[in-house]
């Protein structure tokens, strides 16, 4: 393939989800020529399937539904003059060059600063029968019912009681499906009480200390066997029973999509609480490579609200490092964002993430 003439931008952002769009808006607002590249046909990342109201305070757009926040971001990105390439896959980062496959052609974009905001992907879990059609990611179910308005099955079992498992179970009920049970191997429900209460009120049992031991069916899922988790993680003898589910949702966590940061040569930290290996970064979201920033789930799996704030931080920092804003005004803007991020990580549910993030910053400080 013959490469096109080089395109030049101040800031190139990989990923048009909440973090990437928020980063683009802040960078562009401060005068940076900004390009967002996304492999999908539509921008917004996973925001448009999030039909529930967000939590947090007023300044975090609490009470606003995910897709409304998505529309607002797209609107702001357009108003601030952000360029967007959709259906365009970034497959390589080479110092300040971004390699993109676009319309079947190889394009290279020159970028003074790069912000990687590629998000995360859902984890799979293996059990006998877990590859049968009908066993799928909870996020995939959510996209099907809320974005494409298609129910992938009729009778669901959800594995995992974190917020994703609870929210998608409730949204399945809203879409007219039956949810037979939410199954949780740990002894307690993982997600927020309000989400758990909503599905319990609707009559869906949340079975803690329980797991799926196998899925079965002739060519497609016809049922699952559940078992109680005894001490040592073994299934208690005689505890197995079956449910006639035709679809299983797996809501067992996410892993940061960090391939581009690995490829570029960023240093990494292993943080189980944040979903695995994440690029080491400072309080400006800058990685160990001075021209590469990260924001959103790639820096540790959290929520869309946090992803947007991290995106803003990276966008302001990137524009600041290019000398587009004076450093004192950039500092003021960044401290406001950092204060809001702290609020999002406050309370008992934020504690694990707060501690894990603080560890990353202290590792950075140790050099």
């Amino acid at each position, binding site marked *: 393939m013959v490469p096109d003439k080089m395109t030049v931008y101040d800031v190139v952002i990989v990923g048009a989800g909440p973090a990437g769009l928020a980063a683009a808006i802040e960078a562009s607002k401060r005068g940076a020529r900004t390009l967002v590249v996304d492999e999908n*046909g539509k921008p917004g990342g996973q925001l448009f399937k999030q039909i529930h109201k967000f939590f947090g305070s007023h300044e975090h757009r609490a009470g606003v539904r995910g897709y409304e926040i998505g529309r607002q971001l797209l609107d702001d990105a357009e108003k601030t003059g952000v360029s967007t390439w959709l259906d365009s896959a970034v497959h390589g980062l080479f110092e300040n060059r971004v390699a993109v496959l676009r319309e079947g052609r190889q394009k290279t974009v020159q970028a003074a600063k790069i912000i990687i905001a590629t998000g995360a992907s859902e984890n799979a879990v293996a059990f006998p029968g877990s590859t049968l059609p009908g066993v*799928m990611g909870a996020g995939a179910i959510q996209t099907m019912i809320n974005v494409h*308005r298609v129910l*992938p099955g009729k009778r669901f079992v959800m594995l995992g009681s974190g917020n994703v498992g609870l929210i998608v179970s409730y949204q399945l009920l809203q879409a007219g499906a039956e949810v037979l049970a939410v199954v949780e191997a740990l002894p307690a429900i993982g997600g927020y009480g309000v989400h758990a209460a909503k599905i319990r009120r609707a009559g869906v049992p949340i079975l803690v200390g329980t797991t799926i031991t196998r899925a079965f069916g002739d060519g497609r899922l016809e049922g699952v066997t559940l078992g109680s988790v005894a001490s040592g993680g073994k299934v208690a003898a005689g505890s197995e029973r079956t449910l006639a589910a035709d679809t299983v949702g797996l809501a067992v966590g996410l892993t940061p999509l960090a391939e581009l940061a690995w490829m570029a040569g960023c240093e990494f930290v292993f943080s189980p609480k944040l979903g695995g290996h994440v690029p080491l970064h400072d309080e400006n979201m800058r990685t160990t490579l001075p021209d590469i920033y990260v924001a959103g789930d790639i820096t540790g799996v959290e929520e869309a609200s946090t992803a947007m704030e991290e995106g803003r931080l990276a966008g302001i920092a990137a524009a600041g490092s290019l000398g587009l804003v004076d450093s004192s005004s950039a500092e003021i803007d960044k401290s406001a964002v950092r204060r809001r991020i702290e609020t999002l990580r406050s309370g008992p549910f934020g504690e694990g993430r707060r501690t894990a993030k603080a560890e990353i910053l202290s590792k950075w400080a140790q050099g």
Partner: protein
Amino acid sequence: MRVEKHPVLGDREVGRLVAVRVDGREIVAVEGEPIAAALLAQGIRVMRKTPRFGEPRGIFCGIGRCTDCIMTVDGVPNVRTCVTPVREGMVITSNLQEEIKHGPR
């Protein structure tokens, strides 16, 4: 099955309906929706079988990463149906009718 009515999102807005062929059978799909959504709406859940052991596979991740849902579209093999939009007249084939050519290694 389509989600026609929804307490938050309201009634489904039906886009332009187009015909596509799936393993020789004509189905009606919404233009621009992912091929996988069109198949699921018709109750088609098995998108391929694995070449070595003939095990069925369907949509898993829905974001174009796992490749479990790949099919042949207009003669192009290994198309990720969860992220490929429907166009009028598409010819979509699984490998369900093919012989398994590769025995165990």
